[in-house]
């Protein structure tokens, strides 16, 4: 069993429903986003196109972030999901430098959603999972996955551009789509072996 995701860029409309569903699920503080969607354009007028690239953590099979962690705060769970134990993290940020995908963010300060306002009841409850001076990143919604549910970004995607499943099973939707479209990881740095694959669009 190895959890993986396919993101179909032919279908993605860059709406960021994934980013906000992730926020709602994980309650990340302001400025901390497990998922980021980069919007950009290619070509010249009048044949230019608008493009988007959603970027969760790639959950590498061979994660460089894990190797550099001096306190073993980063670890690989069942199915290859990479998470961080905030109790063990000392905030050295070696992992941020090691990650080729800018998946990780350092929490300098727990920022509230409303600037110059106090934490709302939602923030008070949800921010317990985060600690100033530690590193945070996408966890493939491990709690949902353990309940048999897809990650929030996959569940919410309005164009069904995200598919989640078992990369080890050749019959799974993710495996079939990767084979059919020759989906490839973003920046296939030798050795990292990401679990997120993109269909080019």
């Amino acid at each position, binding site marked *: 069993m190895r959890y993986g995701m396919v993101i179909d860029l032919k279908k993605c409309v860059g709406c960021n429903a994934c980013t906000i569903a992730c926020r709602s699920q994980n309650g990340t503080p302001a*400025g901390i986003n497990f998922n980021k969607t980069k919007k950009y*354009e290619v070509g010249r007028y009048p044949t230019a196109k608008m493009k988007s690239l959603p970027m969760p953590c790639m959950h590498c099979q061979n994660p460089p972030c894990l190797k550099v962690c001096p306190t073993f705060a980063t670890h690989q769970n069942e199915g290859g999901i990479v998470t961080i134990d905030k109790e063990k993290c000392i905030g050295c940020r070696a992992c941020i430098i090691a990650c080729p995908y800018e998946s990780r963010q350092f929490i300098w300060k727990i920022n509230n959603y409303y600037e110059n306002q106090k934490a709302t009841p939602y923030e008070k409850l949800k921010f317990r999972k985060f600690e100033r001076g530690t590193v945070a990143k996408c966890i493939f919604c491990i709690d949902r996955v353990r309940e048999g549910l897809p990650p929030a970004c996959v569940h919410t995607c309005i164009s069904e551009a995200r598919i989640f499943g078992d990369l080890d099973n050749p019959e799974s939707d993710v495996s079939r789509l990767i084979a059919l479209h020759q989906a490839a990881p973003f920046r296939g740095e030798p050795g990292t072996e990401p679990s997120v694959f993109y269909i080019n669009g």
Partner: protein
Amino acid sequence: MSSIIHRYTEMLSKKESLESMPLSPYNWSEADPSLQGEKKTLFGLCRHCMQGDCATLVHMEDGVVTGVEGRAGVPPNYGTLCPRGNSAIMSLYNPYRIKTPLMRTNPEKGLDVDPRWKEISWEEALDITANELKMVREEDPRGLVICEGWGERDTILRIPFRLAFGTPNEIGSHGPLCTVHYATGLIHGNFPVSIVDLEHCEYHITLGRSLGPNFATTGGTRKLTKALERGMKLVCVDPRCSYEASKGEWIPIRPGTDFAFLLAMAHTMLYEIQTYDTEFLINRTNCTFLIGPDGNYKRAPGSGKPLIFDEFTKTPLPFDQEEAHPSLSAACRIDGEICNTGFDLVRQGFVSYTPEWAETLTTIPADTIRRIAKEFVSAAKIGSTIEIDGFFFPFRPVSLNTERNVTNHRGGTYADLTGKIINMLVGSIEVPGGCLGSGYRGARAIEPTEDGTMRPGYEAEERPFTFPPDHVGLVEFFPNCHTTPHLAVNAILEPKKYHLDYEVKAWFSVGGNPIRMNAQPEKYVEALKKIPFSVSIAYHMDEPAVLADILLPEHSFLERLRVAPFYPQHQSISDEVNGLQMIQMRQPVPRLFNTMHVDDIFMELAERIGILRGEGGLYDMVNRGEDWIIKDHGLNMNPPYVLDIHKRYTLEEIFDLQIKGWKFGDGTGLDSLNETGYKAHWQPRKNFYLYYYYPGNQTKHEFYFHHLKNTGDRLRNNLRKYDIPFPGIEDEEFIFDLYKPVPHWVNSSQDQAPKEYDLRAINWKTPYFSSDVGNVTGNPWLAELYQADPYEAVICLNPETARKKSLKEGEKVTVSSLYGKIYGVIRVSELFHPDTAGISGGYGGGAKGGSPLNRKGPDFNALLSIDIDTLDAVSAGQEMSPRVKIEKRRNAQ
């Protein structure tokens, strides 16, 4: 005026707050300790866009709402949810909400004047409001204006309250920037708009609108994705290359010239291609009707039936004569008058609109227009049929659809109607694969009149003329208008000039905010200052709230009980929800503040004014009402489930009766709905296509727009009858030129702008702002997204244009139209037509004391005009592409 504009923009840039509304952080009360450890899930129903029908689950933990997600497996969103829907929690936990009833103590009003709020009890707030409204009602009920809008679209009692009060003056603040309804009402008998059948369509042309991705709607986006996957060709004619255009073929067009493209496409079909769905044109349109020199149907003596020209006998016969063979093209002499068929008149009217002519206006190469017209006609598969549920339909897998950025110019109604002509030429109206109305799907929509043509529906049905006018929004002079706050504001300021014989004494905001959502904000501020009493059912401190005398704080949408029928979707349809009749509900989360449900407020006020019970009261009006959009398919009071007009009801009891009497229900009520959250009834899919109800030649659409001409004629006669000029305009021909039965090119209201106004501003909806629902611009999660989005809250310019103007990325500029000016920052992008200044969403504006997020970004609407000579005379739609000039802001901070 310019000094007022100056004051408005300066005011918004000031930093300090008002004394009675200090922006000190709000202290949230601690969660109830008894709820510690409690987990529960409620059935939700989203309200972060106008459609408001996505099924959700609302999760609570320890008494706190901890998550809102799409409800898996349930239509219409099947688990998915857009970024706005996913940000619902922040609409609940918003420190800038109004938390308790407030009363103004400072008589001076202004956006930057401290109202010196005083907290009062609900009893006091309701008593004061009811007393003021009662006095207005005793003098003249028309003195009350109810301003509704996207901020509050869950209410079911607003209209009954207005009817019981007795004022005609209900005004939607958002309407005139989206006048997209006339042609759909005329040709499909539907409201609000025309959509495309994405289950079958193979070639779709879309102009000035979104199929879903542009503002991230769940159903529309998924359906489009599936249609593209199965190979549908998508052509987007747009000054901006959106995500939609990027997934299809982008045809860049000069802003505001879509009508010229449509005329040239129709010209090409009528003069160069000349392949029509003749069967459709003869059987299902008034193309064959003979038209006299006065422009009216030539009628049979005695019966009065419209005449056609019979090809075999070469004589005029009544249109419904059996075994007649009506000619599409004919000229004949009847009673000494030369008559032509409607088809010939339309064709003749389009003779000069060649693709070369259109190229000079639109910048689209003539050959491209020709190619698209040819592809459209050949993809229509004229003559083919399809079987659905055992019924044979003509199959026309093409559709051309137009919306806001096509219709919101002078001549916009003609443009929308020309789009219908293009679809009718290939027979792709109300059949599988083609262009469909959305809303009511039933026989009533296209029922024929004695003339054989279908009865115009909704806004295509003209309003009666009364003089002096009853309606402060001057609907008597724009009998097919959408909503008219822009006309009301002038009439409030100068009633006599607009022939009103009464003054507005009270303003009641119920989700409407014309200051932010319309144009020339300073004029609305003046009007609201002039009105003696103003009350707002308010969620947050928006512009109408800061100008109000009393604030009645309402629940946020998650706290609001709601039961609603499902309206067929706004953008497209497919097998996913085709045939679905459904009711849905929202189970409310516990309220956070001292707020009330909007409909409880209406009942409390009505009781105090004395208009709740008895004949003509609010409950009586609830009993008599019918769903405006989906009529008998909606939630109505169907006997025996009606209100006893002498009793008092809770909102739950009213919903319970509505559910029990629902046409497609099983007789159970609110308790049963509470267990499932929704009730779905699937009709056969053939019922979705209006052709099914009146097939063959049993009903006809107007191809020659006889009804439009007649409306104009009646309006002119009424002006003569009362010997009055058309208000607010020099030359009334400027109005009547838009009531001709055959569309013709009209000059834009912007053509006279001085040369330095060399660009045209455009606006579009975004995933973060589809309309002003639920204060999405004040939502910090969405704000984080738009601040990171390169195309949001900036002024987008084509690189070539930027180079010519020596403007660079990130430069601070002033954008000015003839009507207002705004500040912004330049973004250089290849995704824009060179004549465009692209400004997205609904940013800027805002009032002191409200969320600072509401005041950020350029306020596109402040560039628009409310002057009558800039409007489309039929729909009263405002010009959405004003000419603008861009100048560097020197010494800008």
